[in-house]
């Protein structure tokens, strides 16, 4: 794929340096996968609470799922600071929306569209927000679940997952997901996905939250851990049976 250099400004060289310093060319503190599904009454979203500084586990209590307005739930992987900036944009957006005091409010579809435009706009300026966002919600009895990437690629689906989740969790979801999942079965399915991620994604940690959104509103669970089982023989001796030179 073609790469692009930042256009050279013919003006003040200090200005160029300053502008360049504002560009996220690589992320600093990052969060890993988000997994989300639609279920009978709405949307469920799971995320762990780790914040990685490269391969260092720098933060262990970061909330990466937040309620937006009355009808939406936003989850993010990628650069944590950019996510928190996005939350500030959305705070302003929903506050302005609320000030009309006309009984109308932005639904998940509108928020998803707004985020898609923000992400795409920033990539057009070669100054991306380094995140993959997941947007879930319920409005007027309709569940909504969608995703937006760093460069503005966006779509809706019945279940979505970012990063490693797309590799490890979505095959499970494609096997086991169905539209009339109960809350309990939905949580069980998400926990199954998060457990696989915990075992195989090195930046995943065993402290997670599951958020629920229904017509009644948003509830984000208290952080909790999953039961793990490390006594599988292939965990003890992972190279047994694998042909190798040592």
């Amino acid at each position, binding site marked *: 794929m073609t790469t692009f250099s930042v256009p050279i400004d013919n003006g003040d060289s200090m200005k160029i340096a300053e502008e360049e310093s504002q560009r996220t060319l690589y992320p600093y503190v990052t969060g890993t996968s988000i997994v989300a599904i639609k279920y009978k009454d709405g949307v469920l979203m799971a995320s762990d609470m780790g914040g990685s500084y490269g391969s260092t586990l720098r933060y262990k209590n970061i909330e990466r799922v937040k309620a937006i307005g009355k009808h939406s739930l936003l989850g993010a992987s990628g650069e944590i600071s950019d996510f928190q900036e996005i939350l500030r944009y959305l705070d302003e957006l929903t506050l302005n929306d609320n000030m009309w005091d006309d009984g109308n409010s932005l639904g998940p579809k509108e928020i998803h569209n707004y985020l898609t435009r923000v992400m795409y706009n920033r*990539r057009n300026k070669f100054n991306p927000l380094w995140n993959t966002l997941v947007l879930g919600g319920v409005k007027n009895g309709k569940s909504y679940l969608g995703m937006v*990437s760093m460069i*503005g*690629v*966006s779509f809706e*689906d019945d279940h979505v997952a970012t990063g490693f989740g797309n590799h490890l969790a979505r095959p499970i979801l494609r096997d086991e997901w169905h539209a009339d999942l109960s809350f309990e079965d939905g949580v069980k399915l998400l926990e199954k996905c998060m457990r696989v991620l915990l075992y195989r994604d090195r930046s995943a940690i065993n402290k997670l939250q599951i958020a629920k959104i229904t017509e009644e509103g948003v509830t984000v669970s208290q952080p909790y851990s999953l039961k793990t089982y490390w006594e599988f023989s292939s965990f003890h001796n992972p190279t047994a049976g694998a042909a190798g030179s040592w």
Partner: protein
Amino acid sequence: MTKQHANWSPYDNNGGTCVAIAGSDYCVIAADTRMSTGYSILSRDYSKIHKLADRAVLSSSGFQADVKALQKVLKSRHLIYQHQHNKQMSCPAMAQLLSNTLYFKRFFPYYAFNVLGGLDEEGKGCVFTYDAVGSYERVGYGAQGSGSTLIMPFLDNQLKSPSPLLLPKQDSNTPLSEAEAVDLVKTVFASATERDIYTGDKLEIMILKADGIKTELMDLRKD
């Protein structure tokens, strides 16, 4: 220390294949519904076909975010056209607008590969194919996107359109009946799906005629 991260790119290729065939009084526009990034599938049910006007349907592959932005520009330009002229835009007019819209971003292109299908002012089927920066041509049939290299030569072989060099200009529309064209489209997509990893899941077919649009769906391989 050596560079640890890949250089950021504002582009991605989300794959997908688009085909359109023009007949005497119909136009068939088809695309698969897979959206990929690298070796991963993002969605198995993302429509690449966008209805722009009553007689103009656009099918696009490439970078989804650019495609979406392009569709939005064309949609709003068409809305303004309707307010100014009190009618729907014709397919050849939409074809020129699409070319201009793509060329407007010549030096930071929309990474979009389009096939525009529809009916012209005489009610005949028409197909326009494009490159990412707006070069375009009216043809009898066209294929764009990740599976186009597999499909295009097969269509050339089966449809044998008259050379554009012939004088006087020959009609490039295919002699096929509507049912034959739809069958051909199903066949080429089933074949492309066998060899192109970016094509698959589902095929969406739109059949445009003077009395309206029909949509058909067919399953494709999901691997």
